[in-house]
């Protein structure tokens, strides 16, 4: 498969990830917000600007180069100055775009489209649209969860419950990674699963007596007779545990421990994604990391909401102190910020995949930008990598190209290019299979050009030898 910026399979997968990282409805709204910002060119101005979807409790602020979301307007912005706009909550623009990529993929690359389950992914995205979307999504969710109920063994109910929790976690992770379900559909489940796993006595927790409001609060249960009877084990949403009067202090302590491991795991997933040698792996890594940050932010959100509830306020002060409000708030912000950065990167890749995937375009831009202001160009490329808009190898190649232009740093630039080539060479087959541009060839062509300019025969021979190793 050769690289084509318009390759429908790649464009389909990139857009599907952007749609499912949270859910397609939110992605449609994000697209409209993004377009309003672009039209107003707010990010290019020095003054302070704020945008708000009409009726939303928060606004997006562009403040002298810094972008943030806030519910409190910064000084210098009067409520009347906020640019309010309407969004079409029934928009299907991205769905139609996805459908057209799927159509082309099935016609142009039928085998690959089938192997990557493109029709199935499209169906998964479609179920989030239309008036019946809630029931369709719930049905798909329960169907996946029921599928985890096989092979639970013959042990006691507690043991079978524990096996089921492990199975359902695996099934849902795979469904999310395979783009068969949206992140927001499964975050609550993972918060509950993690609650059970962190609980010193999960069997006791899961067997707590049900309350009269049982069926309405039973977000996650698979109450099939074949698996669990209606009086025993169950997995509930996080609020249920937090509000249960029999476990008030324990529930707070356990629930506040959910976010930190997800934040750490998300960071590690981002680090791995940064080091990827292909854009497809980079985007898959961001999609996986966003999920972890989302579970962290979700669990903190539930705790903060609980902190305002009458149940919480009725607890004695020593129990209320267990919530650690400031820590939860800090974790919530961090998880949400990192989720948004991952999602924004996926979204921008879906909106304009040629921006960074075509490394040749990046380098053409870098070469001309470096002529004007090398320091500024270097800062810009570091910022793009820092904000997860490109994997690290693109940044490293771009920085090396800037160094090559500076006589005093030319040798350093050459060393850096050889280092990148050394990292990429073992991955070249994978990159070509995924239909990525031949980044490595580009790196070697830069090295070749430098060798020609320097009349460096040794380097020339080294490059020829490297070329001969390529598939």
């Amino acid at each position, binding site marked *: 498969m050769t690289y084509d910026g318009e390759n429908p399979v790649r464009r389909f997968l990139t857009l599907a990830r952007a749609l499912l990282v949270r859910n397609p409805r939110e992605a449609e709204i994000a697209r409209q917000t993004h377009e309003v910002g672009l039209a107003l060119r707010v990010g290019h101005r*020095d003054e302070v600007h704020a945008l708000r979807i009409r009726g939303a409790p928060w606004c997006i*602020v562009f*403040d*002298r*180069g*810094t*972008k*943030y*979301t*806030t*519910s*409190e307007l910064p000084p210098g912005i009067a409520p009347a100055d906020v640019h309010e706009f309407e969004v079409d909550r029934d928009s299907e623009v991205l769905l139609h775009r996805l459908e057209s990529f799927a159509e082309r993929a099935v016609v142009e690359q039928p085998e690959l489209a089938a192997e990557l389950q493109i029709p199935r992914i499209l169906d998964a995205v479609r179920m989030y649209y239309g008036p019946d979307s809630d029931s369709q999504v719930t049905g798909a969710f329960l169907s996946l969860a029921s599928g985890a109920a096989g092979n639970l063994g013959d042990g006691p109910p507690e043991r079978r419950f524990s096996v089921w929790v492990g199975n359902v976690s695996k099934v849902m992770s795979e469904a999310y990674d395979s783009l068969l379900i949206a992140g927001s559909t499964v975050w609550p489940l993972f918060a509950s699963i993690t609650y059970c796993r962190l609980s010193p006595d999960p069997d006791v927790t899961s067997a707590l007596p049900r309350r009269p409001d049982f069926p309405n609060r039973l977000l996650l249960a698979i109450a099939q007779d074949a698996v669990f009877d209606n009086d025993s084990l169950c997995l509930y949403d996080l609020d249920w545990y937090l509000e249960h009067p029999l476990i008030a202090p324990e529930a707070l302590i356990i629930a506040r421990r959910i976010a930190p491991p997800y934040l750490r795991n998300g*960071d590690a997933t*981002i680090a791995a994604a940064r080091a990827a040698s292909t854009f497809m792996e980079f985007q898959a890594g961001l999609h996986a990391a966003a999920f972890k940050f989302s579970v962290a932010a979700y669990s903190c959100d539930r705790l903060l909401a609980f902190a305002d509830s009458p149940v919480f306020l009725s607890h004695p002060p020593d129990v209320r102190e267990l919530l650690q409000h*400031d*820590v939860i*708030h*800090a974790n919530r*912000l*961090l998880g*949400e*910020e*990192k989720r*948004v*950065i991952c999602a*924004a990167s996926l979204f921008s890749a879906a909106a304009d995949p040629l921006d960074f995937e075509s490394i040749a375009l990046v380098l053409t831009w870098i070469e001309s930008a470096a002529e004007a202001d090398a*320091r500024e160009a270097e*800062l810009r490329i*570091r*910022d793009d*990598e*820092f*904000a997860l808009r490109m994997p690290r190898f693109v940044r490293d190649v771009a920085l090396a190209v800037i160094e090559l232009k500076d006589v005093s740093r030319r040798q350093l630039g050459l060393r850096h290019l050889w280092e990148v080539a050394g990292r990429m060479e073992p991955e070249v087959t994978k990159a070509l299979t995924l239909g990525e541009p031949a980044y490595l060839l580009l790196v070697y062509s830069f090295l070749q050009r430098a060798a020609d300019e320097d009349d460096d025969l040794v380097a020339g021979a080294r490059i020829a030898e490297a070329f001969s190793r390529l598939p």
Partner: protein
Amino acid sequence: MWPIVDVSELANEVAEEIGLDVSHVRPRDRLFFSGFELALWVAGTLLSSFFIGYLKGIRKAGEKLGERSVDALLERFEQMRSRFRNRDPIDQKALRKDVAALMEEMQEAVQEVPRLQAATAFAEEEQETTRTLLELNFPADQALLIAERTLVTIRRRWRG
């Protein structure tokens, strides 16, 4: 002969170590879209704190090490840290310009700092970097983790 430490390069590495956790510096009511410039600003502040800690360590062990007085240098780094701290992190245009100027100044100052191959690192280095992170709104556990992580990078470059 020690190789000259390139402060900008070192700050880039430290900024990468801090990563997206840098947004702890934001006000509580905001969700930040942090950029590299912000990380570079924190990295510069941390670097000045490291040198303050290092120089305090030298001063404490001064007689034994037979080093000249480091008071003047220490004061220079303290002024630099305070100037880093007084920047408005929201104003990216000004931040970019100010951080670049401060890095150049630090590069000059660093060349005057005596290089010691201390068997163990000075405890003051960790105290100063952690304190700075706490002052920049990092939660205590994160401040300790980031101080530990960034000190590995700084010490590797500084002590070889």
